[in-house]
């Protein structure tokens, strides 16, 4: 079993592709994205489907990677969530196959 970092990035849907490009450019081997259906932040609730432009939808991207990749990725992501609605957290995980991450 190998120790890795798990990045969980929540980002507003219109900026989703930007987040993807950042991850890919930093050499992340993979990521998986989920669509949130509701949320709360800044004192306001939102719910998917209410906003026809889908511009308030949130996407959560999960990506497992090595410590050194996360260091490369984090500055660009900080810039992204400085401009766009978004937030991230990082945790420790173990994985089976080192070469996949």
């Amino acid at each position, binding site marked *: 079993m190998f120790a890795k970092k798990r990045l969980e990035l929540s980002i507003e849907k219109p900026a989703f592709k930007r987040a993807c490009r950042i991850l890919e450019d930093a050499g992340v081997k993979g990521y998986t994205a989920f669509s949130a259906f509701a949320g709360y932040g800044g004192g306001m609730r939102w719910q*998917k*489907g209410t906003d026809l432009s889908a511009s*308030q939808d949130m996407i959560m991207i999960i990506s497992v990677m090595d410590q050194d990749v996360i260091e490369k990725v984090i500055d660009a992501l900080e810039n992204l969530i400085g*401009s766009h609605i978004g937030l991230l957290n990082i945790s420790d995980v173990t994985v089976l196959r080192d070469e996949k991450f």
Partner: protein
Amino acid sequence: MSSELILSTLLSPIVLFFILGLGAALMRSQMSVPESFAKGLAIYLMMAIGLKGGVEMSKTALSPDIFAIAGVALVLSFGMPFLAYMMLRVTSKMSRVDAAATAGHYGSISIVTFVAATQALQLAGIVTSGYMVAMAALMEVPAIMSALVLARRGMKKEGEVAGSEKGELFREVFLNASVVVLVGALAIGWMTGEAGMEKIAPFFVTPFQGVLCLFLLDMGLNAGRGLRQGWRQLDAGALSFGIIMPLIGAALTAPLCWLIGMSIGDAALLITLAASASYIAVPAAMRLALPKAQPSIYLTLSLGVTFPFNLTLGIPLYIILAQWVGG
């Protein structure tokens, strides 16, 4: 006659279903039309509108009038955001970037409002031209550019947002679903003409009004929820803007219609387009281009205030206005 028109609009099934949805949302009912179903209906509606417009365009040769109308449409879409921006900066406490983004919404258009106006005109027995659909498509985008000019004016140029790419805003703006489907269906309708339409009319023409009822039930739910969640974000100046701006847009457009000699039906549609505000294409573009502008402000205004106003009281007013200026 005019009170009759208002009443018949208000009592049409599409408006009544909108009000049902609006009421349910304001009373905090949990009911909803599934998002993907509503989005599918939206694509259907845009295909239907585009096809119908295209087929009608195929029947008559393009006259020079059409270019005059297109010119007016472009001027309105480009120009109205500047006016809206000034109004917002004077009457509300909105920040510069919020005001610019909001202004962009009012230069652009709402295709559902356009369709509702078409239905009301049909009910009143007033004819309209197929090419007005092209005008609707034409007015979607220019206002977005005006909003960007307004927001960036006098600011020192910011660095690019990480991960952004050349061309992404262009694609978002010119290849969004409503532009692709509306313009595409218009072109297909034009190419295939009456003959091609015949076979698909039982899907795109006959059930159209019924589908609209279902769609407007959902719009009512959305508008009500938008209003409930967002109205606290807005001061009195902003809220009243949501009703005054459409009226100003209408008042500006009417004399232009008269100037270029539009028919009553077409004038009513152009006035409606000017008076309507976007809540799909422009918000999406604004999140990319002006991420600092708050979506809860511009969405609440355009979807929660302006759209319900136009659908119920606005449209009959614009038709009456068109009866004065149209020929």
